[in-house]
């Protein structure tokens, strides 16, 4: 098991450069960081936990998982909207994180890196299931889901309306859906979304705008009622 019973080391400052292999003729950068010896493990910063993990303290991985598992699961749920698949896929995400963490170079923030893995895994899953919506937005609007349409015209409670909106999100293509999830549900900035999706900020803005317009068209009955 990863939970080690070994006595925690007394830790002071720590050079993360020792975990970064020297590349070519470039001078090795040494970053001195405070490993917060007084702070309990579960409250240490991400970079501190990662450094500890990379130095062999693998049990700290648990705190990273517990810190991000709900957010990862939520992204998966928001994109797939399928409760049963969430935990399996989230575990695969963290297994990937665990395998790649020894090579993590702090070139981006840990959480955007985890989100990137999450989005990629979710995309793989969608691809695997071949459930990508290949039809155009016009086609969606021409034949909206009857049940959804009925509920949109009769809903009263905001919680149910909220549920309907997130369900309607499934009707728009994944490449427009994911930026909306990251922006409007996860509250990420354009820069962070661009980092997660590995694209330019302009692309993020454009996809968000188009995705929102599509969603508005889908939700027209609900919005008119409100």
């Amino acid at each position, binding site marked *: 098991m990863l939970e080690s019973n070994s006595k925690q080391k007394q830790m002071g400052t720590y050079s993360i450069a020792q975990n970064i292999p020297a590349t070519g003729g470039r001078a090795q950068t040494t970053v001195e960081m405070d490993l917060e010896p007084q702070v309990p493990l579960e409250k240490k910063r991400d970079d501190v936990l990662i450094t500890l993990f990379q130095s062999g303290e693998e049990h700290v991985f648990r705190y990273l998982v517990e810190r991000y598992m709900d957010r990862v699961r939520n992204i998966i749920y928001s994109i797939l909207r399928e409760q049963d698949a969430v935990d399996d896929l989230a575990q695969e995400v*963290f297994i990937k994180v665990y395998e790649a963490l020894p090579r993590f170079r702090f070139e981006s923030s840990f959480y955007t890196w985890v989100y990137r893995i999450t989005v990629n895994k979710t995309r793989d899953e969608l691809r695997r299931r071949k459930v990508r919506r290949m039809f155009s937005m016009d086609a969606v609007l021409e034949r909206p889901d009857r049940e959804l349409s009925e509920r949109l015209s009769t809903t009263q409670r905001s919680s149910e309306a909220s549920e309907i909106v997130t369900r309607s999100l499934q009707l728009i293509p994944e490449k427009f859906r994911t930026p909306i999830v990251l922006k409007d549900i996860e509250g990420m900035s354009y820069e962070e979304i661009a980092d997660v999706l590995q694209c330019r900020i302009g692309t993020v803005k454009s996809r968000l705008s188009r995705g929102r317009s599509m969603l508005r068209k889908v939700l027209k009955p609900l919005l008119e009622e409100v």
Partner: protein
Amino acid sequence: MKKGSDRDWRLKLSLYLDDALSPDEKRGIEEYLETHPDAKKELNDLRQIRSYLNSASRVETNRSFWPELSKRLSEKKREAANLLPFPRKYVPLAVALSTVVLTFIGYVAVTERGQMMQFLSETSQDVQRAYEENVLKGSVLPIFSKIDKDQVLQFALLGTLPLDANAQTSLRVDDKNENGYRLEVGRTETPSKTKITVEDLLAEVEPTEAQAAAIDSLLEDAKTRIASSAFVAENNALAIDPEIGQLTRVLVSNIAANLDPSRRERFDHYLRGRDAAYAIATSKVHTPTAAPPPHVSVQLPRIGREPQERQYLVITPDTMVLSKLFADMRELEVAHQRVRENREIQRELQLVIRQFEELQRQKPIHRSIQRFRVVGGSGFVTIQVDRDNVQMEHDSLAQWVIPRIRQAGSRRIDQRPPVGRGEEDRRREFFPSFPRDSMFERFWEDMERFDIDVERIDSMFREMRGRREREYRAVMDSMMMRWRENQQRGIRPDTLKQ
């Protein structure tokens, strides 16, 4: 509003919603919204949607998430530890090395494939090389290049082919077992007293002109094939086309297939009268066939692959190899012209046999490759060929005849005396796939003693083909018991019904 500007407008509205516009842009949008209620409605809709999304239900916390994940991670670590004989950090290096090695092997395999195939297919390259060199130099002698059609017919009927003028040495074929057959080269113990000639055959069967022509062309074809089926080399090697063992049955079958039912019956009678190794299958005796085309030669169906690809079993006292030999028969025949009569062939052959005999005395030989087994004995060399191993594209014509049990005294192969060990041991060791023959051996003496009609046993024996060995043994035991009882009571066996 045009579509292009519509998209720009929506982009700005989206940015305005996220508060991502400069103060000037923001002011411009707000002024526009004041005068355009539709645009304002759209902005409100987007705000509403965002608020719904913000308040969307989150997935519930799963308290068993970490324990389950931890278990999966531990399993993965264990698998990785079990699979890799080195630390994980060396995986890229190992992959790179493997790629280099495999690429090298692939390169060698592609560029040197001819040699590699040769290497893989040979158990002894030296023998192969020496033999092929001999073939090319003409120092290999075709054993049967001077046989006539009478001898071919005799071979088809009796499975024996004399190797010299006095018939002191012969090639014998035993095709009576469904698992395979045996080829034997050795001294002739009891030369056949029955004279078999094509003339007799034609006189007894009385075929039409077309049928006679067909029989003649079949015999000619078989003669050519036999001529290129066995060679002896000066380096004490013997090369035999293992498929020659099938030739007897194929030839008799094809003769039968070219006859009409009445003449086929005569041919069956002729076979029985000559104590042939085959009889016409009961189901085929009256089967009508198309008459053979007049004046057109009929060829034997190819038993295996094309002649150019024929494989020979090359055996020497030291080695054994199954290999393709490209024997140029014309060149060999020229070389053969220099050989007086068959005496030199005879001498070489006797030398090979003697060496096998000598080896058998020192240590029992049991040499085998790919289910070919060779055993030497007192004055003979036997090659056991398992049927699965040879490219036997059994033509349906080969099924026109079936092996029959011949009279005592004509079973030449099985009568070989034991060498070194007890006969049963030797048979078990060298011919384990011949259960029916060896079982039949057990009853042979009884049958002779009780004067049981061998022909009748033969037909019963044929009916039992395909049954399992155990069933066969039980039936035979019970049959023999009944025969013995009835013999004691003086009842003739032909009144019995099994």
